[in-house]
């Protein structure tokens, strides 16, 4: 069997050392570098995507104008949803009076936390029972207002209309609604 010369052994050792150095370089430097690069690239893509979404929101308008418009819309919606109990009761009676409906009594119940996924806001449900007197058409118009332009978010839960069946305009009506009041947390 041929024995390796001193020179050949030297070449093999250096070759092995070089191979080990390359492997160490790949494991300790190249792969971590690639991982960091990938992380930065992903973060960059995410950020760029968020910026693009914001650009879409502004719809090509000036940023200040877009912010003003969004704030205006937010204020309108907040005024509608972030209403307090007193303002709600006043609105219920004012709107009824406006339609010549006689509010005999109005009984707000206990406000309870409403289970809703609305991050940043606490939602309270306030039941309100009303005994009113008025005509069928007026009550229909009142319900239309509650469902439409009423300055608070309300849901009609119960409606009971009683009359003598003679087509009179002063029907006895019991109306139970739930108002949803939001508070910023």
């Amino acid at each position, binding site marked *: 069997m041929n024995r390796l010369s001193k020179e050949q052994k030297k070449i093999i050792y250096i070759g092995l050392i070089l191979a080990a150095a390359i492997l160490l370089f790949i494991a300790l430097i190249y792969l971590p570098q690639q991982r960091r690069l990938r992380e930065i690239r992903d973060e960059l893509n995410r950020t760029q995507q968020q910026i693009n979404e914001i650009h879409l929101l502004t719809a090509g308008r000036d940023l200040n104008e877009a912010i003003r418009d*969004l704030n205006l819309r*937010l204020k309108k*919606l907040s005024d509608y949803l972030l209403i307090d109990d007193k303002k709600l009761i006043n609105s219920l009676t004012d709107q009824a009076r406006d339609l010549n409906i006689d509010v005999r009594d109005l009984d707000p119940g206990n406000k309870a936390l409403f289970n809703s996924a609305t991050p940043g806001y606490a939602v309270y449900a306030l039941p309100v029972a009303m005994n009113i007197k008025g005509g069928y058409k007026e009550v229909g118009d009142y319900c*239309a207002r509650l*469902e439409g332009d009423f300055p608070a978010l309300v849901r009609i839960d*119960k409606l009971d209309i009683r009359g003598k069946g003679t087509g009179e305009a002063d029907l006895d009506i019991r109306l139970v609604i739930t108002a949803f009041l939001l508070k910023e947390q």
Partner: protein
Amino acid sequence: MRWIAFVAFLFLAVFFIFGQANIAARRKHLDSVQAELRVFSEVQQTKYKLDTLSNFAREIKGRNVPVAGLMKKLSMSVPAGIIFTEMNLDFDLKSGYINGSVRVNEEKALTKLVDESNSSGFFADAAIDILEKNGTAEEGQKSNFKIVFKFP
């Protein structure tokens, strides 16, 4: 041999420096893009709040039965001769009833009202629950009725 080792070392060093420079350049780009995003974040926060509130209002309104529309439809469907004395709508229980009276021999109008209610889309399973004659011949005989229904 020494030269080969030197070239290999040089190659790895250049590779390392190039990698670090690449990372630094992308990091710098990311920083500038993130700075841009911070400027825009007011828009994003306002939009997020707006979406949250809009979704909530839409969710609540979506669950509601349109009461005004229902009342209007009902008043238009009632044939002559039928008189309501009570109308009870319970949207929590998704059910209701109507009490009233109809002139004797005009009960067909009641069936028509029930059929129209069922096809209106506002009511489901409307049916005559009670129908009984009432009053004397001199007073003009009437039938009292009770219609029960559910909300779809």
